[in-house]
């Protein structure tokens, strides 16, 4: 590992007030190439808003975002669109395009944004869908896919754009328990393949094994950060540990 490399993504002092409520209070972090940072914390902590502020789907009130050392000027539309192409985003409820089949869902941005021709876009889309294990579902429409399959299509859609980083906003929270595994395994493969990612999740086990750093958010701030074994070990005595043990209890009760 080389030290003091320039971070791929740097987020500085992001603040956001929505409806008079402070959702984000000066959030900062940075991401090295190949790193997986996991955002955990209670609902309403601001994890989702933070991810959407990073690619300006929600414009932050204050703060700066750098991609590979270049600050993003979100007011310049062209810069903003170019930046977003390099940042893959996965949503909790998939947000597939309902009128397009799996193949077209992946191909449309290649054609309309990257201006690839129909055949090249198709080939790339097929390759990405095969990568997430959906090579036999190309012609199916979102309404014909299970939740886990939909989320994998949305991951293929993001990967096809060759993103430099990926933002994953609770990708398994809308899934039935038996479908979570197939999506987590795709994300695990991405992490092992060196994809740089920020993942908001409640999957603590997954976080323990794969996170390079855990960011614990509460009330719009990152209040704890560190290696998963430091923050989440049984006698760490941290706020993160407390939160996770309550999640564990919850799932234990359900079983």
């Amino acid at each position, binding site marked *: 590992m080389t030290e003091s490399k320039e971070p791929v993504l740097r987020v500085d002092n992001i603040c956001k007030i929505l409806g008079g409520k402070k959702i984000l209070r000066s959030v900062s972090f940075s991401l090295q190439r190949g790193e997986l940072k996991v955002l955990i914390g209670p609902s309403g902590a601001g994890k989702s808003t933070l991810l959407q502020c990073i690619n300006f*789907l929600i414009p932050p009130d204050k703060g700066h975002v750098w991609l590979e050392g270049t600050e993003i000027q979100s007011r310049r539309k062209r810069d903003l669109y*170019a930046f977003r192409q390099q940042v893959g*985003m996965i*949503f909790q409820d998939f947000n597939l395009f309902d*009128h397009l089949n799996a193949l077209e869902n992946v191909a*449309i941005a290649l054609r309309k*944004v990257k201006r690839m021709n129909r055949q090249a876009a198709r080939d790339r889309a097929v390759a990405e869908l095969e990568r997430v294990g959906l090579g036999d579902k190309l012609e199916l429409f979102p309404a014909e896919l299970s939740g886990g399959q939909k989320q994998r299509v949305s991951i293929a859609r993001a990967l096809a754009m060759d993103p430099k980083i990926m933002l994953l906003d609770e990708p398994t929270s809308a899934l039935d328990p038996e479908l979570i595994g197939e999506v987590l395994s795709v994300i695990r493969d991405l992490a092992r393949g060196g994809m740089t990612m920020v993942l908001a999740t409640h999957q603590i086990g997954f976080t323990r094994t794969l996170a390079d750093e855990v960011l614990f958010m509460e009330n719009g701030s990152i209040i704890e950060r560190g290696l998963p074994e430091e923050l989440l070990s049984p006698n760490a005595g941290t706020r993160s540990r407390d939160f996770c043990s309550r999640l564990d209890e919850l799932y234990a009760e359900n079983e």
Partner: protein
Amino acid sequence: MHNSFSVVFEALPYLLKGAIVTSGIVIGAMGIGLVLGIHMAVGQVFGNRAVRWLVSLYVWFFRGVPVLVLLFLFYFGLFTLAGLNLSAFAASTLVLGMTTAAYQSQIFRGAILSLPRGQLQAARALGMSDIKAIINIILPQALRFSIPGWSNEYSIILKDSALAFVLGTSEIMARSHFVASRTYQDLPLYITAGCLYFILTWLGVRALLKLEAKVRIPGYSH
């Protein structure tokens, strides 16, 4: 002495030509309404305050004034004032087109608003501009969901087109009236006119139902 059957039979080719004129007015008006209506709906949903205000002013005007008044207002008033020398056919088509645009814009607006908002977010996240997202993601779905409302609007405009008679357009109603006033066979002629309108309505609505089935998204129930 005219036999009612023979009058209708002899007048039928003449009346059918009227049906072609009526179809021309309706197709023209629905086409104008489609193009204007889509733009207005997009403007009303995604536009800035000035655009939204302009569109809603337009919609209030055309929804608030009777079609008959609009036909007279534009044909004898505004078109002349603007130095346009339009035929009665063109003027009727244009006025009905502008009127249906107001209603159609609201059909499309409702359809756009009924789409899950996340799809626009996903399109933006992929680097699409709003225009690209509207053209490639929003409208293909919104227009599908608009077909039932649009079909209803078609049947209304078809019947409103009978008002073009007052400007002297030689459509179904004008021709029926003309023959009736010369043969005094009002009842059979207006029954025939009614049947022609009914058939045109039925054909159009049926065609739109077919279109709706053809473009239905597999597995999707809305």
